[in-house]
């Protein structure tokens, strides 16, 4: 464990900026809200800011991304295809534990199972990840219910925990070790580990006071979702409130469904574009011709929550698909973010 005093943060960031495009939380000038953004001005980094409104998912899994480019010359019938390389290494600094967990879920999904997703892999190989312990939870948070915070346990290159004066720095990789040595951080001393644990424990016990927006006791809901014993009326009630905007998927740190389209550009070339998609859309499962196996909106809602919370789906991530960041509750026009859905399912179980 190392010690980074508050005034030395810029040292770390400046060093990172030499090799990486740096992303981190910053505040919007007008609204004061927090956005996870590319920091052209490194001084805009705000490690004390609340959990950002957007998850850092878009850095690894962009909303709109060209994956290959091809040119087909109709006369000569000649085809040239090129893969689009993502050259720029990126550093994500100030990741909240939930968002880091989200990235680990994406890793297990995109890089695991039958095939390795080459497009994701390229993004992922060039990342430097620095997490930031939530020393106090934010109103929307329920990561303690989903086992994904308030502090990171794995997957980071460096991990920061704010003590009031500076940061305890935990090293998670050789890359991280090298950086710490390069900028000459001092060891934090023998008590550091215990100190970090105490800060985390205090954070956990303050959830009752600060994290008041959402309660999602997901274990009972998980059981019900897995077995499927949820009355159709519950899904209908939820489905009636769904505005089919797709936002819950787009803001979810672990949602990774995508669409692929070939887009013809001026000059004759075509980009194969991969974009975010959501299983809540009617056209998502539609096949050319005449058949849609999944039609009513409540079926599609059902599908998404099954994917987030059922045991069988958690195989994909080796944990639940929800990381407790509370974003879906904030962006949902229908007020059926995951915590509310869990409440409705629990209400059915308990008959409250």
């Amino acid at each position, binding site marked *: 464990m190392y010690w980074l005093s508050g005034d030395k943060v810029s040292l770390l960031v400046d060093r990172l900026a030499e090799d990486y495009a740096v992303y981190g939380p910053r505040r*919007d000038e007008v609204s004061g809200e*927090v956005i996870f953004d590319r920091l052209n001005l490194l001084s805009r980094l705000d490690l004390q800011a609340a959990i950002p*409104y957007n998850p850092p998912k878009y850095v690894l899994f962009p*909303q709109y991304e060209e994956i290959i480019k091809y040119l087909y010359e109709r006369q000569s019938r000649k085809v040239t295809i090129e893969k689009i390389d993502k050259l720029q290494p990126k550093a994500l600094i100030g990741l909240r534990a939930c968002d880091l967990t989200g990235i680990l879920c994406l890793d297990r999904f995109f890089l695991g199972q039958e095939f390795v997703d080459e497009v994701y892999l390229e993004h992922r190989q060039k990342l430097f990840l620095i997490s930031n312990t939530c020393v106090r939870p934010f109103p929307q948070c329920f990561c303690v219910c989903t086992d994904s915070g308030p502090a990171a346990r794995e997957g980071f290159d460096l991990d920061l925990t704010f003590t009031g004066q500076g940061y305890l720095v935990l090293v998670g990789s050789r890359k991280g070790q090298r950086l710490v040595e390069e900028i000459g951080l001092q060891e934090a001393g023998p008590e550091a580990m215990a100190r970090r644990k105490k800060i985390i424990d205090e954070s956990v016990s303050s959830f009752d006071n600060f994290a008041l927006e959402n309660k999602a006791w997901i274990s009972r809901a998980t059981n019900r979702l897995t077995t499927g014993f949820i009355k159709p009326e519950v899904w209908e009630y939820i489905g009636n409130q769904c*505005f089919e905007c797709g936002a819950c998927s787009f803001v979810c740190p672990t949602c990774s469904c995508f669409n692929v389209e070939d887009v013809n550009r001026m000059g004759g070339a075509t980009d194969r574009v991969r974009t975010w998609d959501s299983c809540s859309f009617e056209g998502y499962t*539609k096949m050319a011709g005449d058949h849609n196996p999944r039609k009513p909106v409540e079926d599609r809602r059902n599908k998404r929550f099954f994917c987030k919370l059922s045991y069988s789906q958690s195989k994909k991530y080796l944990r639940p698909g929800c990381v407790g960041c509370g974003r879906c509750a904030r962006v949902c026009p229908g007020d059926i973010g995951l915590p509310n859905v869990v409440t409705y399912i629990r209400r059915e179980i308990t008959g409250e």
Partner: protein
Amino acid sequence: MSYYRGICNFCGTGCGHLLQVENNRVRGVYPLPGHPLSRGRLCVRGWHIHELLQTEERITRPMIKEGDSFRPVSYEEAIEFTASRLKNFRGREVACLGSPRASNEENYLFGKFARAVMKSNNLSLTSDAGLEESARILLEGCGFPAMTGSLSELRQAEFIMVVGGDLTKQNPIIASEIHFARRSGAFLATISPRKTQMARLSQKHLRPNPGTIWLLLEALARALQTEGLVKADYLDDKIENARQYLEYLDSLHLKQVSELTGVEEQEIILLARKFYESESAYVFYPVGIQSLDRRSMSALLNLFLLAGKPGRPAGGLCPVTGISNLLGSLDMGVSPAFLPGYFPADKEISWKRLEELWQVSLDRTPGQSAGSCLLENQSLRALLVVDHDEEIIRHINRIKELDFVVYFGAYQNAFAGLASVVFPRLSYVEEDGTYTNSERRVQLSQKKVEPPAGIRPLWETLSRLAGALGQPWPYKSAEDIMAEISRVVPQYSGLSYEKLRASPGIKWPVDDLHLSGTEYLLAEEAGCRFRFVFDRSPDRFQNISSVNEGRFPFKLVVGRSNYFWHQNSVMKRTFIPKREYNALLLLYPKGFVEISEEDARALGLREKQPVRIISEAAEIKLAARISPDILPGMLYIPYFIEEMISGFLHHQASDLEKNEEFFLPVRLEKVE
């Protein structure tokens, strides 16, 4: 930084968003947290605006038509050519069609070009009919032309009534605010023949037969009267023509209304009571392409006045605009009825004022909408159009006959092909501009990316054209134009870019009395005097009873759909919203007509069975889609199916333009 604050440009809600810009391209969009109205939410359209902004199907150079094709030319040549042609046309020979998607600055200048340079008052938007009507009624009734309440107070609402339309589809984030209000305790009622999602979210859904919404609304007023819920002293004090209106209501019998609308008398009384008992009330109705009709809008106003609701916070009469800057375009006077700032075009004093401000003489000949000109005005010879959606294609034959057509547009579309000259226009992220949403919130959308090389802003093109036609204009930027707008449009008098840059929008009127804008209409400021708006026609039931039987037993209603509505030219450049639209058409490749379960059973219809819809004038073959949302006796087709617009409904084009209450008597036959 790669995320920049902005305003969504799709519908009249005006949600805040963050656009992700990389290498001068918009690569993503995210809802803007902390926006006072949208509060960090977007709808399916808003979530995909970056797909539209990625398109390369742009108009990038001025072009002059030669034979069947276009020749790219320089701005100089295009302006010289256009000016040399335009100087041959004046007044009634010219019609100008503004765009509710263009900024206030662009619309203001386009209107000025029409009136001051072309001397023509044939100046309109396509989808203005409903909004203009609503403005006229609200002005007459309460002296204020737009939404009298404010959406940012919605969550404090006690009573909300949504009349007509399909709000969760047209303005999803406004609908979301209503949904939240209901969840925090407001009473929500929907009046609509179709069982919309809003209806499903409501505590009360009244389903009047198509064409009888206005009658049901009058009946609610009548119920206030019969239940003794009308305060005589309030009426005498505040409302000029109270006695006449009460007399008019006297002749209405709830029992008869119940028969004609299909809504039970008890339900009418119950809702009227609920409305009366609430401290304040919101009433929402759609204006735009699919708008409530004049009678229904008047009846709503009257009901609102009779119940004593105006001037209270957390309530109001709320016309909801379907397209981003529809309200702003009308504020700017892109209308035959109003000069900029809602000065009525039939008052000499309005013209005198504008002549003084513009320092130019103006023609007083009453104008028509561009649509009416194309249908009726035989002397029409030239047409100027800004960035148009494709439905004007309905008038394709008339447009082909015109001598000269100018198109100013950002994207390639079928309409551009009809033009004699095409000028490119910037997309809304390539230039500063202000947009005014349904609740009068004027928001500044700042430039975020550099335009494709060589494209000049519309205000500059118009200024150069005006100059070439002998009226040099001094504008150097969009901000300059706003400075002029603040002198010409009293509601905008306190607005400036400086003020707007630091705010999430300001609701007009912004003036000396309301420096930071206006949340809701204060009764005192309206002069405390209201008027009921109604026609005392001898037979108010005339149009209702005649259509029920006979050769055409069904009432065919035409509606909009979530992902596509009427904005083909915009939505077809996205992936996901386009797919969602295609999803329906994939299931029903030849289009569909919705029919109630009851009628389908009676006729022995199966899902997707082909049927023929026959009206007096035309017929069309479609697949039946059996829907629980439809009332028996009613048929519903979505507006977006091109064949319907161009073929079947073409005969009804002028009726269709009028309002949502429009229905077509038809019969339905099975195709064996």
